């Protein structure tokens, strides 16, 4: 054995020992051992870091989940809207817990005051910000409840799921929506609601939030809910609530029977992704046309982004 080898061994050995001693004390002092489950949970999360769950990022969601599981609180109130049930199930598996099935939700725009239905009475000239315009005036169409069409919701969406339709001047939600609720918060007029996605993506809702009486409401917008209660009367499941001259369909109760849609005199109730039905009576032709146009738009949107395409899309984005 030569000197160099000897010295090398000695020096490194010494250094190693010293380091080990130091680290031992570090270890003594820092007893915070991170639960390896956190990593596991984080691994199954989508890592969009969107904050949709209410925590700053996916990792903190993971931490909270683990903690919650440790405290036997069963992931109560914790939900990753992006990953949805699948992910929550995986999380629950990792933590050895049950998770309730939650029906998937989607954002719904409850206003149909398009340029055609609610013609502009004034011209807005200012920054494209709904919140600002909301403070400034009632809206171009004159309805003080309706969509301002300046796209705060579009900006707020991190998932490219909501877009302005330049023709109608209204936002439209596509299948990329993961119901994070950002747009709901962003809209100063509380137009957007998260509703059940529904079987086969079918949904029925009142596309109006105008609380005025019938006359004034109709004056600004041809498809406003006038609070006539016809739908409420016809609904076999008591799913429709009338309040403030406005009908609201409770999506927990609604069974998608479409009866209300037929009776609405102003076409304020929307159905999405239903097959076209036979033409109505001749007298209703104009209304029917309008309705169909709306439906077609909705249909093409969801067709274009069928689930399979959608999947690959998101993958590329990630």
């Amino acid at each position, binding site marked *: 054995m030569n000197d160099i080898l000897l010295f090398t061994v000695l020096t*490194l050995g010494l250094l*190693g020992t010293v*380091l080990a001693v130091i*680290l*031992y004390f570090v270890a003594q002092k820092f007893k915070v051992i991170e639960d390896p489950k956190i990593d596991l949970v984080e691994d199954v999360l989508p890592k969009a870091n969107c904050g949709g769950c209410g925590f700053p990022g996916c990792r903190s969601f993971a931490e909270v989940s683990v903690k919650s599981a440790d405290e036997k609180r069963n992931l109560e109130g914790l939900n990753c809207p992006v990953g949805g049930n699948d992910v929550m199930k995986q999380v629950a598996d990792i933590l050895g817990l049950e998770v309730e099935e939650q029906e998937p939700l989607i954002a719904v725009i409850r206003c149909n005051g398009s340029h055609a239905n609610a013609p502009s009475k004034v011209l807005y000239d200012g920054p494209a910000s709904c919140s600002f315009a909301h403070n400034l005036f009632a809206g171009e169409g004159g309805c003080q409840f309706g969509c301002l069409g300046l796209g705060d919701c579009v900006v707020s969406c991190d998932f490219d799921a909501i877009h302005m339709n330049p023709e109608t001047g209204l936002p439209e939600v596509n299948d990329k929506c993961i119901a994070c609720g950002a747009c709901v918060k962003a809209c100063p007029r509380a137009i957007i609601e998260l509703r059940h996605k529904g079987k086969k993506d079918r949904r029925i809702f009142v596309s109006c939030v105008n609380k005025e009486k019938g006359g004034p409401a109709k004056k600004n917008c041809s498809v406003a809910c006038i609070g006539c209660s016809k739908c409420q009367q016809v609904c076999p499941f008591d799913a429709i609530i009338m309040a403030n001259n406005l009908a609201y369909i409770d999506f927990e109760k609604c069974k998608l029977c479409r009866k209300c849609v037929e009776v609405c005199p102003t076409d304020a109730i929307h159905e999405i992704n239903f097959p076209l039905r036979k033409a109505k009576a001749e007298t209703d032709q104009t209304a029917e046309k309008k309705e169909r146009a709306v439906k077609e738009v909705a249909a093409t949107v969801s067709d274009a982004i069928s689930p399979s395409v959608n999947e690959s899309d998101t993958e*590329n984005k990630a």
Partner: protein
Amino acid sequence: MQNFTKGLLKENPILVLVLGTCPTLGVTTSAFNGLGMGLATTFVLIMSNLVISLVKDFIPDKVRIPSFIVIIASFVTVVELVMQGFLPALFEQLGLFIPLIVVNCIVLGRAEAFASKNTPLSSAIDGLGMGLGFALALTVLGAIREFLGSGAIFSIKLIPGDLMLVFILAPGAFIALGYLMAITKRLNNK
């Protein structure tokens, strides 16, 4: 296979993860230097990944990182000694950045994130993929800088005379890397 390919573009250590920026900027005055540095790092990555995944079960958690450092530093020293003996010219060019492989986050990062959890074989492949991704980025950056700076790639003159000296100097390094990253980002998003 995926372990191998992801390092090349999707998880390219430099262009996407932004790790090991110093050697990236420091040695890429020419394509050849970039390649040399890249390969040296690849070697360290493969070997340390391999060894670490072999011994991972014997190492108590608390001395994990120091043990990794010792292992990595040993391989770096080996590279240093070998290069000094057999590739003295390149060693001189790369200078300080060879010992600095030790602190290159990729090496330690991969050891920690991958090798300490996976089998020796897949760890080695991961090391290879990451290393080659690193080498690729370095070579490309080196080639770009060499070409823009002196009109040559791998010392083969493509354009007579010098082009824009800035690219061989410090500012050019930052700027070229910035745009290279922007381009990668765009490619990855497609």
